[in-house]
């Protein structure tokens, strides 16, 4: 009896103390839970999935599995309809997707080998309210559910506070520019080197270096050796005396006496490199930037340079009315490569990357949703939209990053 009692007592105490210690230890694992997040996407993934990876819908003995099939083809709806586990062949199935903007996509299904195929592509984003209508032997079945992705709700006052601002998508201009550098040169026709027609003694020189001359001004007088007649050397163009290598009393032979140069017009010879060449044509508008002054002109011609240079020269005629430009100056030219009007553009600030797409976020009320875009041409400010967005949609321009951050934030973590 005593021995029995002793055993009993000992067991009691063991029973009590060991579980206490183990519970305490087990608790530790549960204590760590609050660090993790419950991932909503994952919760959704845990819903019932059918053998084909689709969503299972039940009613009575009817089972419908609906999947978006993306393997190698554009996303399409496929459905499997069974009654009592056996495929049926005479059903009428419609799926209506209502998107955020109110747009409805309607799919009618037709029978394929072992599944039903919806007509049409399920366009991105796959974010919509789904309504399924099934007619089978005179019975109608309906299911509805919401299936959202890339969607987030932000109250209007909060959006205002954090600086989210939208614009209405619409037509616009795309102006693509190319930046090139080049130097200013004197056009060949603006520089005249005067020589004596007949050798002789120079009797007068009326101008000095730097003097402005008009066309027809007498620059020098020479007495011909042969005829002993004096003849005048006149300025063939208006310009400035750039060089004078003659003085009274000197004999003029066939060397250059005076150089008249006109800076009224200058050429900018812009270097266009092979990667840019395809986009540059004569006649394009060029904005020349010279010492913080802007000049606008056109490309007159494009010529190759001496052999061996990798670039070609695009010539632009510039009028130098102010006289602030000089040959040899380096200029920077912005060539308007393309200037087109397109039916739909978005502000570049609105563009964000999302998964593999470039998206904008459209706003309907307090709801924001991604719109994967098919983009066309772009300049530094606007980008042409070829698909994915409609004219009149409100899209987020300022602080669009916040929307992206909010949609993706469930993935943001700080693992120590």
């Amino acid at each position, binding site marked *: 009896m*005593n021995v029995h*009692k*002793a055993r009993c*007592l*000992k067991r*009691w*105490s*063991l*029973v*009590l103390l060991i*579980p*206490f*210690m*183990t*519970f*305490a*230890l*087990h*608790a*530790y*694992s*549960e*204590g*760590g*839970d609050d*660090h*993790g997040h*419950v*991932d909503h996407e*994952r919760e959704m993934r845990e819903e019932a999935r059918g053998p084909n990876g689709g969503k299972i819908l039940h009613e009575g003995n009817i089972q419908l599995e609906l999947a978006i099939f993306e393997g190698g083809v554009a996303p399409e709806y496929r459905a499997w309809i069974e009654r009592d586990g056996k495929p049926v062949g005479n059903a009428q199935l419609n799926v209506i997707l209502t998107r955020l903007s109110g747009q409805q996509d309607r799919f009618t299904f037709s029978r394929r080998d072992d599944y039903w195929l919806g007509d049409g592509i399920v366009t991105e984003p796959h974010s919509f309210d789904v309504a399924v209508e099934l007619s089978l032997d005179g019975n109608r079945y309906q299911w509805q559910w919401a299936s959202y992705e890339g969607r*987030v709700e932000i*109250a209007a006052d909060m959006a205002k*506070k*954090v*600086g*989210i601002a939208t614009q209405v998508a619409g037509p616009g201009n795309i102006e693509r520019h190319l*930046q*090139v*550098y080049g130097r200013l040169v004197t056009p060949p026709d603006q520089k005249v080197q005067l020589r004596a027609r007949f050798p002789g003694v120079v009797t007068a020189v009326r101008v000095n270096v730097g003097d402005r001359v008009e066309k027809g001004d007498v620059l020098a007088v020479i007495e011909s050796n042969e005829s002993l007649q004096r003849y005048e050397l006149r300025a063939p163009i208006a310009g400035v005396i750039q060089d004078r290598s003659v003085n009274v009393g000197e004999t003029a032979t066939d060397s250059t006496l005076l150089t008249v140069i006109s800076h009224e017009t200058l050429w900018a010879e812009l270097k266009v*490199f*092979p*990667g840019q060449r395809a986009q540059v044509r004569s006649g394009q508008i060029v904005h020349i*930037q010279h010492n913080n002054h802007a000049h606008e002109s056109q490309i007159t011609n494009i010529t190759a340079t001496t052999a061996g240079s*990798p670039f070609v020269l695009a010539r632009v005629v510039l009028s130098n009315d102010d006289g602030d430009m000089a040959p040899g100056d*380096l200029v*920077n030219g912005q060539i308007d490569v393309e200037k087109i009007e397109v039916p739909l553009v978005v502000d570049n600030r609105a563009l964000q990357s999302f998964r593999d797409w470039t998206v904008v976020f459209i706003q309907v009320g307090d709801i924001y949703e991604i719109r994967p875009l098919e983009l066309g041409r772009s300049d*530094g400010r606007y980008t042409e939209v070829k698909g994915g967005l409609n004219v009149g949609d409100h899209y987020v321009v300022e602080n669009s*990053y*916040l929307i*992206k*951050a*909010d949609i993706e*934030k*469930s*993935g*943001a*973590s*700080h*693992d*120590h």
Partner: protein
Amino acid sequence: MLNAILRFSIERRYLIMSLMLALIGIGTWSYQHLPIDAVPDITNVQIQINTEAPGYSPLEAEQRITFPVETALYGLPALDHTRSLSRYGLSQVTVVFKEGTDIYHARNLIDERLSAIKGTLPPGLEPEMGPIATGLGEIFVYTVEAVPGVTRENGEPWDAMGLREVQDWIIKPQLAQIPGVVEINTIGGFDKQYHVRPDPQSLLEMSVTLDAVADALRSNSNNRGAGYIERNGQQLLVRSPGQLATITEIENVVVGRFGNVPVTIKDVAEVAIGKELRTGAATRDGHETVMGTAMMLVGENSRVVAQDLAQKLEAIKASLPDGIKVEAVYDRTTLVDKTIATVQKNLLEGALLVIVVLFLLLGNIRAALITAAVIPLSMLATMTGMVRTGVSANLMSLGALDFGLIVDGAVIIVENCIRRLSEAEQQNGKRLDLRERLHVVYQATGEVIRPSLFGVAIITVVYIPIFTLTGVEGKMFHPMAATVVMALLSAMVLSLTFVPAAVALFMGGKISETESRIIVASKFLYRPVLEAALRFRWLVVSGASLLVILCVWLLTTLGSEFIPQLDEGDIALHALRIPGTSLEQAIDMQEILEQRLKEFPEVDKVYAKIGTPEVATDPMPPSVADNFVILKPRSQWPDPNRSKADLIAEMETAVNQLPGNNYEFTQPIQMRFNELISGVRADLGIKVFGDDLDQLVATANEILEVVESIDGAADARVEQVTGLPMLSIIPKRITLARYGLNVDDLQNLVAAGIGGEEAGLIYEGDRRFKLVVRLPEIVRTDIDSLAFLPIPLPDGDFVPLSEVAELELKPAPAQISRENGKRRVVVTANVRERDLGGFVEEVKQRITQQVDLPSGYWLNYGGTFEQLESASQRLVIVVPVTLAIIIGLLVMAFGSLKDSLIIFTGVPLALTGGVLALWLRGMPLSISAGVGFIALSGVAVLNGLVMVAFIRDLWRETGDLAKAVVDGALIRLRPVLMTALVASLGFVPMALNTGTGAEVQRPLATVVIGGIISSTLLTLLVLPVLYHWVHYRSNRYHKA
């Protein structure tokens, strides 16, 4: 031996008293030198090796810096493991040493290894070891701000750069000199730099390259000493000054020649004060600020250091420019003071209640005072012990101290002495003379000393399982167990020496032991109840057994938490944004977040650190911000009784409405610990090791799928490694060659142009600022026009960047983590509603079957399941061994297994009350509650011991079992009631406390109060019944 000590203590009572004075002296000294902190330090022995690598991308940082550094550390003695992360501009290798390694020695070893590899690192990069601090190190944080409207001397308003200059050159140098401060870490603002920003077009025009600009600046800014010359007996020092000092001087440096004309910096570039490319920022109350964090040296007293810092900061204020406001936003002193206040309050209230109870029950104020004196004396002795063993005073170590238990031994001795003294007086009919009195005290003490010593020994033994905990849990609870054991041992020594000596010394007068009315009434009630219990013993025993079974069941339904969360009073939260978020964007989001938090009336200050501070003690990307929410004192809250959990819940709802942020709520010190310990904190962590990041991620995702498909898996996820958007400028080699360029030429230009190139220092007195050559902001930040950036050719011509390089925008690894010298990606999962061991087994099996690991890749299973497994295994051995030791001790005390077991029944019976109390208050089972149970077992055993000892002695004297049981129980009624009341009333303030540290003490106190009620009832009823029953039967058996 015991008797010898007793005799000595009583005879040399004056000596003992003077020894007590010495104890008070030493104790007071120790108290002043006791390191006081809020929570126990759970940091492991670790050293961070940070290498700042400006401009390096994660991939380059890993390849060029992290790998050589890691390789150099192989084979260090006492090395536990290394881990590393490579991020933009930073390589951080964390070296963790085995517990107990001397940190200074370890740093020496690392220093030696690092100096050996300096040659293999890229030039200009210097690995540095992080500050010698632990998770408790960040004790003081202050912000530097400008008073709105006040301008600087030059008439301009203060900007972030100006504030940073004040912090770097006025405040920091002064604070860094305070003893105990190892580092002042700055975050926020901008480091002032002198920027030379060449205009690409002007460079082309003047045929000057970016390199030439940097070279010209480098070779035109130096002071040189040139020895000395002697002249006419005088010594002349020779010096050639040439340092650049002002913007004008920089502008006039000649960079080249255009024809005959010198080209100066001014001709090709703009020179101005500019901002660094910073990696971190700080905000406070919704606007940007500059913040300094003082880090405390390992082992210093945080309260003292923080106080010194606060004082110094106050003194510094006088030396600041007008309009600069410096304010401490976090001061550890507050928390430590609160902790001390809690402990002091409990000590005081406990002691007062003990005195009151003793006085009421003993009816003798002197006896009450003697007993109560044991509390401060043993506290002082404990503190001396703590200083000697290096245990710091904190919520955990002091929070679990339990004064009722400490005085239990003394109570029993004093009670017995009083009883015997008054008995002797009554017998004698006159006052006892000294010799008689000493003898009575000696006898009375001797009667109960053995059982009470054994009781204390048993309680000490019960703490053994706590000492077997390792890792974080061990660090958390060892100090607590050590402190309690020290307190108990000192109380034991005191009751052996001080108590009898004091009783002998001070109980000289008439012992007015007229049993107090309470006791008389109790005895009047107790006798019939006890007799009834003896009659209906079956009922009593089976009732008690039923109660125990019920409580065991109840125990399984209680929630549980392993480590109690110490409430630090303040809130910390990580604000997480998606990877790739820019610093400026993060600041904008942060400002809105702070404004929202500030709207709470409970919030005093909000401040945050975004990204990485100057010293990368906590390297975070710009997308992560550590927020600190400092709350007002509760009295200023609209509802002072509001629970913190409720406040946090409301905050969480509020901030979740802000778009783009994710949050993790925690507490400041806790946050820092998590950052430093940095282990896998999920139940299961599967680490995939290998070389190729894409392959690692692919394999990790495969594993994730497997894990998710297993029953019980929750929160499974793969660590995020990619997602940092990166602009790659990929050289076209053939085209480059056609233009006569090397890849290097292109890269240098891109690096210098966009990242900037250092070209020397500009000195302003002590202050020194970097001189940087960098393209103008408008050029370097415009990706579209970057394509047109002209690259100079050797012949003076140029080619646009897009011609010789491809610009590509694509995501890249945000961070590369490595462990023990190999890249790794972690898959983590928690387990719900399933046993962890089975889950892990299944995961291992399924992964082996379903996941095909490429060669060169391997897995490692870790996570808390490992600690749980090892701790469980240890406890499965240690707990039974402990129980065996207790029984062994009891057997030693009684020489009877039967009696020992009877006493032992008190343990489960006492626990029932504790369980019921927890259940009633809706509290989870925690280690604190566990400590309460341990204390309870001690009280129960102690009471049982004394009672059984008395009954047995009486039985031996009288030979009548039934009478001995009843009389013995009646004699022991008073001490049992006293110990019970002392312990339970002493805990009432603790149980109701809401102050700092209450979360540790509340469960403990609750368990003890509840348990003592049940334990007292059961000791008084069940124990005598059991004793009588067991011995009656065996008696009869023997007689038969």
